[in-house]
Structure formats: structure tokens, C-alpha cells
């Protein structure tokens, strides 16, 4: 089946027919988007904060124009003339960039160069969107930009870990939709173990034992997934769903049995401030002042990348995920490879679970992972099954979640239900508009059977 489609694709004759549809390219769609955003920026700031608007209660500068103050820490801040900034950025970057993107391309080198310029221009617009939206939303107020990025990274942590967990399983050809369940198990079991040992060992030891238990329980759930889907060749989606449902019941049972009657305090893992690096302005606070699992995310990210692309094990894993029959012919034990990768996937997911209960909150609530495992899968697809791409996806989701909260804090005049949708809207726009075709490993989701 797999090989048949490949040959068909390769043999297909290349026919070049241009229809009107071909002129709707991704950069052009984005150009239209950016023109609309630019227009909105210019119009909304001039009507809301322009010369004729009612500016009472807003911060203004000596000239009487509305200002936005972006603070970074106790001492550093940046004051921006909101209307001027939004007008200039809106016209120069968004509207002009969009128009250039829509221009018809002359043939030859000039056209190519124009294409390249447009691409970078639109890319810059994408990046610039983050501070710009903050500056407009906080018009006449001050808002803390560092904390926004810091809390984005924090919220991204379980999503990125979930995505990395997914990469390990799927790169070897096993779909793992049970990440959510594995995380929840990790969160529950980890905290239950911490509660049980509390009092007999020092708190920090107890917390680390909890983390260990979380990781192992994630691995245990993964073993179940592997057993069902690799050894018995059950449909991988079915097996994953079973684990998700089971985790809900199991952890809720444990919570009632152990946690309700326990008197343990709600401790969390210690914050670690990395000396010297944490003193770097802004970036230091964001990246070098966090808790252990936050740092573990970066270590896992780099380790996953190196192992997948620079080691023999990684090469074999990818071979098994793309074409297990070929890999088998070359003497790779496909089932063993998949088993080990799925186990690693579960161990990582369990660590992600510990983030919820032991690193962030110091308690366990039923269903407290609230879909972050699934968003992790989306981040993995966003990143096209590449570790750093998945990291980008996770950070984007974390950021949009934080941004939704920040909009509410800033009293942006939109009903909170819409603001709460921010992460999901971002997901849709990004998946549909930016990522394009995401190609999974070819044998992903297909149980391997020796011929």
C-alpha cells in the first residue's frame, strides 16, 4: 500500500497547467491578511486615541498624545507614542509589505529577488505582530512585557514536553494520542507518591521521588500502549484512547483514596536561579530563572534533536518509522525499536505530568492536564515532527494562552469568551495558513507485521 502510492507519485507525468487557483499562493494570502491588519491598526488607533478622542484616564506625554509604557523590570521601561507607532508600523510594514506581496512578479531575476524580499518582509511582520498588538492593547497604560514572555515559556513547558514525547513515538511509526493520559497519570501518581512519603523523608527528596514516580508511571502507561499496539497490533488510536480514559478514572480514584485525607502541605520544586546568566537583562529572567522541569525541557529538546539526527539509534528509528520492511531487511529489529521508543515517549510524558502537580501547583486535581497533551500533539504536527519546530509550536500556544489572559487584564473591549478563544484561533490560523502540508513519517500509525 505504502510503496504503491510512492511509485504512483513518482511516475505521475508533470503537467504544467496554470489556473486562477495557482495565483492564490500562501504569501499572497498573508499579504491580504497583513493589509487588513495594517488598516485596522491605523484606523482603530486614530479613532480611539486620535486628536478628537476622549483621552481622560489614559497616560499621555507632554504633547498630550497617548503613550504606551512597556516595562521590562523594576528599572527598565520603554515609552512609545501609541498613535504614531501604530500608524507608522501599520503603513510601512503591514500595508506596504502586503501590497508588495500582491504585486505581479516580472519574470527573471528581478521577480525572484522580489519574492525573497516579500518573504522576509512578511516574516518580519509576523514577528512584529507580538509587540505591536501589546502596544495597541495597552494604549494609555503600562504593561509588563518580560512577564508576558516569561509566563508564555512557562505555559509552553508541558506542551513542548508533550510534543517531544509525541516525536519519539511517531518517528518510530507509532501514533501516540495517549500523551494526555500519560501526563495525567504522571501528575496523579507523582503527587500521590510525594504525599505518601511526606513526613518520612525531607520535602525536597519527597518531591524528587514524586517526579521519579511520575516519569515511571508515564512509562508504565506507555508499556501498555506498546504492548497493545506493537505486540498485539491493535489499532493505535483505539489503544491510545483506552489509555486516556483509563488515566482519568485511575487518577481520580487515587486522588479520592489518598489525597483527600492527606494533610501534607502543597510544596513545589524549588526555583533555580542560574548564576551570572540570570543577570542578563530580560532574557535572564525568561530563560535562566525557572524550576527544574522547565530546564529539563531544553535538555530534552536538544537531546531529542541530537539522538534523532546524529546517532545510529536515531537513524534506525527514522528508518523504522518511514519504511519498517526495508529496515527489517537490513537487520533492524523493528518491534524492539518501536517498543523502546514508545517507552521513552511515555517517560517523557510522565515528566510533563509532574510539571502540573509537582512543579507548578503542589496539588492534583481531576483532569488537571486539561488537553495540554493534545495541544502538544498539535505542536508536534506544527513542527513537522522536528524537535525545534515542535518547540516553536509549543511556545506559540503558550504565548497565545498568556496573551488571552493579558488582554483580559488590560481590559481590551472584547468579551472574555472571545479572548479565551485566542489559543484555538491561533492554532487554526497557524495550522491552516503557515504550516502547509505536514508530512508524517510514512509508516506512522501502521502496525508492523513481518511478511
Amino acid at each position, binding site marked *: 500500500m505504502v510503496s504503491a502510492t510512492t511509485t504512483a507519485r513518482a511516475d505521475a507525468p508533470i503537467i504544467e497547467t496554470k489556473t486562477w487557483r495557482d495565483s492564490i499562493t500562501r504569501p499572497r494570502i498573508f499579504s491580504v491578511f497583513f493589509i487588513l491588519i495594517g488598516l485596522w491598526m491605523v484606523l482603530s488607533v486614530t479613532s480611539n486615541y486620535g486628536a478628537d478622542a476622549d483621552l481622560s484616564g489614559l497616560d499621555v506625554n507632554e504633547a498630550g498624545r497617548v503613550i504606551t509604557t512597556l516595562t521590562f523590570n523594576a528599572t527598565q521601561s520603554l515609552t512609545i507614542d501609541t498613535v504614531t507607532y501604530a500608524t507608522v508600523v501599520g503603513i510601512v510594514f503591514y500595508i506596504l509589505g502586503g501590497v508588495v506581496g500582491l504585486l505581479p512578479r516580472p519574470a527573471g531575476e528581478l521577480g525572484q529577488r522580489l519574492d525573497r524580499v516579500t518573504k522576509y518582509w512578511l516574516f518580519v511582520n509576523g514577528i512584529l505582530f507580538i509587540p505591536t498588538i501589546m502596544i495597541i492593547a495597552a494604549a494609555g497604560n503600562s504593561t*509588563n512585557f518580560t512577564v508576558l514572555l516569561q*509566563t508564555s515559556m512557562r*505555559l509552553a513547558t508541558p506542551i513542548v514536553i508533550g510534543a517531544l514525547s509525541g516525536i519519539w513515538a511517531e518517528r518510530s511509526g507509532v501514533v501516540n494520542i495517549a500523551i494526555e493520559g500519560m501526563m495525567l497519570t504522571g501528575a496523579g501518581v507523582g503527587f500521590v507518591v510525594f504525599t505518601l512519603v511526606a513526613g518520612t523523608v525531607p520535602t525536597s527528596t519527597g518531591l524528587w521521588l514524586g517526579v521519579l514516580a511520575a516519569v515511571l508511571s508515564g512509562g508504565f502507561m506507555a508499556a501498555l500502549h506498546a504492548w497493545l499496539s506493537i505486540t498485539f497490533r491493535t489499532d493505535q488510536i483505539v489503544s491510545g484512547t483506552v489509555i486516556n480514559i483509563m488515566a482519568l478514572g485511575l487518577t481520580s480514584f487515587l486522588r479520592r483514596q489518598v489525597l483527600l485525607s492527606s494533610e501534607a502541605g502543597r510544596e513545589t520544586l524549588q526555583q533555580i536561579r542560574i548564576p551570572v546568566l540570570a543577570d542578563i537583562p530580560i532574557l535572564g529572567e525568561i530563560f535562566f530563572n525557572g524550576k527544574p522541569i522547565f530546564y529539563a525541557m531544553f535538555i530534552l529538546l536538544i537531546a531529542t534533536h541530537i539522538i534523532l539526527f546524529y546517532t545510529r539509534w536515531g537513524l534506525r528509528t527514522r528508518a523504522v518509522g518511514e519504511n519498517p520492511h526495508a529496515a527489517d531487511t537490513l537487520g533492524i529489529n523493528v518491534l524492539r525499536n518501536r517498543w523502546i521508543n514508545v517507552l521513552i515517549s511515555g517517560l517523557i510524558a510522565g515528566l510533563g505530568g509532574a510539571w502540573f502537580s509537582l512543579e*507548578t501547583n503542589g*496539588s492534583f486535581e481531576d483532569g488537571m492536564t486539561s488537553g495540554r497533551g493534545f495541544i502538544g500533539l498539535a505542536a508536534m504536527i506544527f513542527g513537522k515532527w522536528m524537535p525545534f519546530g515542535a518547540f516553536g509550536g509549543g511556545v506559540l500556544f503558550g504565548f497565545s494562552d498568556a496573551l488571552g489572559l493579558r488582554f483580559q*487584564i488590560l481590559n481590551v473591549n472584547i468579551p472574555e469568551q472571545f479572548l479565551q478563544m485566542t489559543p484555538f484561533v491561533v492554532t487554526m490560523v497557524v495550522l491552516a495558513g503557515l504550516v502547509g502540508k505536514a508530512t508524517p513519517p510514512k509508516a506512522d500509525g501502521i502496525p508492523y507485521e513481518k511478511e
Partner: protein
Amino acid sequence: MPRKLVHVVMLLALVLSIVPVAVVSAQGDVSSVCLVTDVGRVNDGTFNQFAFDGMTRAVEDFNLDSTFIETQAPTDYESNIATCINEGFDIIVTVGFTLADATRAAAEANPDRWFIVVDTDFAEPLPNLVGLQFRDDQAGFMAGVLAALMSESGTVAGIYGIAIPPVVRFRHGYEQGVAYANATFGTDVEVLGVYIDDFQAPDRGASAAEQFIGEGADVIFGAGGPTGSGGILRASQEGIKVIGVDQDEYFTTFGGGETPGAENLISSAIKRVDIGVYDMIAAVVNGEGFPENSVHIVEAANQGIDIAPPHDADVPQEVLDILQMIKAQLESGELETGVDPNTAEIVAPPGPPAAVPEATEEVSG
């Protein structure tokens, strides 16, 4: 054939043996009460436990028979209520907004029994049904006054759960409390707030807390189940003063002082579910029956709304005195929060009731 007949006779006997029990209990005095929890247990530190406490106290005071059923899944609500009815209990207490529909259906089918539902109200009254509705806004109001008086930075914040009526009442009460303190006690405090569309996401509550701290807030009120608790827990550990909700969180979230940050919990906005349940059981036992509109309002006036002591936190005596004064004024009706308890919306500025009547007229008329 004969065997079938035996079955029918047995069944008939069974049915007949139950019916007299029901008839007797309907005629006789009220003597027993049965409690059905929401998913959870009677010692889980939530409404389930408070309602159970209220029932237990009533059972001791009035010498009643009692039992309780711990619901395992939302699909069991109806059958658990039916069990209480079939076992012949006179008063059935169901804990939580989510059991309201099932309880109402049971009340319609069993006019000879009494039904009490915690944390809801009913649009169409039934003589044997009552919903306990809490003046969350009064609790939030006291929290707001406290927050405003304790703030040094001039910014306070609230982290709320899903915007359902009780949560909205808390939020609006809190904001009105801050406004009242600004108008009356000369503070100049700005109040921020976020709704988070999930009661079970403490990590998102924590992230909201971080953002509030970044915006300069130095007192944070958490009113959204575990999400709000997650928020105030993080804030308290960052050295920010926090206010809990529903019960005295010093004993739950902060483990009786065991949890780091407990010294920053300055109070909790309390709703006394136990008092509401007790009062309604008492009303039935004393023969008064339920309020005609099927709603029992639990408020400061009947001791159902309270503000917790500071425990390990450092709150000046004059602030505590002001809080006691506000509580007394809310109790006597001298002071209104300006929040309509039915719509949960702000209808008037906080202050003496003289300013309110017009607005209330309008709503009720």
C-alpha cells in the same frame, strides 16, 4: 406458568411492602434526611463536606435519622436521588448546581418529600423544593474592601473561574468593595481581573497571578475552584498578599499553615453552605416549610456569608475593625453591595440602601 405466578405475587408483595412505608412517612412527622453529594465525598473539603456538616448538625439537634450517598459519576444523580426516595427519607439534600434538574424532577414526582439543592435557584417555585442561593457578592465585597485597604501599590487583582453566576457575583462584589473603599476610606486602588474558562487548571491560574504581579498588583483574590487556588498559591509564594474563597483556605489550600506562603493569606471570602442546609432542614422540621419562591437566600443577615481571620498573616487591627463594621452593616442592611443577586450584574454604586431601591424595583418589576 405457576412459577411466573409466584414471581408476580412476590413482586406484588414487594411493591406493597414499600408503599405503606411511604404513606406512613408522609403522614407522620419529618424524621429523616438523606444527602446526595456531587461527584466527590462528604469529607473532600468542598461544598459536599460543608453541606454534610450542616446536615450532621441538624441531625444531632433535631434527633433525625440520616444517611448519605457519595456520587461516583454524573450519570448516577438520578438513581442516587431515587434511592433516597425509595428508602423513605423525608428530606433529600442534593449538593450542587449540576443536580438541580434531577432534583426538580424528583420533587415534582414526590410532592410528599422535601428537597434542598445547594447553590442554585429555581425560576418556577414548587412548595416542596428549595434552592440555596448565596450572596457571593457580599463575601466578595468584604474581600474587595480588605484588598483595597491592604494594597500599597494601588493595584489589586482577581482570578476567577468560568463566568457562571456565583463566580460573576464574587467578581462584581469584589470590584464594588474596592470602589467602596476608594470612596469611603480614601484609598486609590485600581482592580484588575481575569476569567479563566476552566475550574481545574491551577497552572493557568498561576500564570495569571504572575502576570498580575508583573502589572504591579500586590493583593490577589482567587475565586475559581482549583484554578483560583493555583493562582493565589503562586502569588503567596512570590510574597504577594492573597485572599481565598468559599471556605477558609488556610485549612485547605494552605494545609493549616504547612504550605509555604500561608503567611500571605490575609483572609478568605466564605460562604457557609452548612448554615444554609441547617436552616432549611430546621424550617421543615419546625413545620414552617420552604420559602414560597423556592429560593433561600444565604447572606450576611443570616450569618451565611463571612470573612475569615488572617491567621498567620499580618493585618493591622484597624483594618480588621473596618471589616467587622462592614460585615455588621451588610448584615443589618445599612450597606448594599450594588450587585443584583439574580442577574449578578452591578446595578448601583455600593452604599446605603437608599440609593438602591430604584434599581431593584426595575429588575423585579
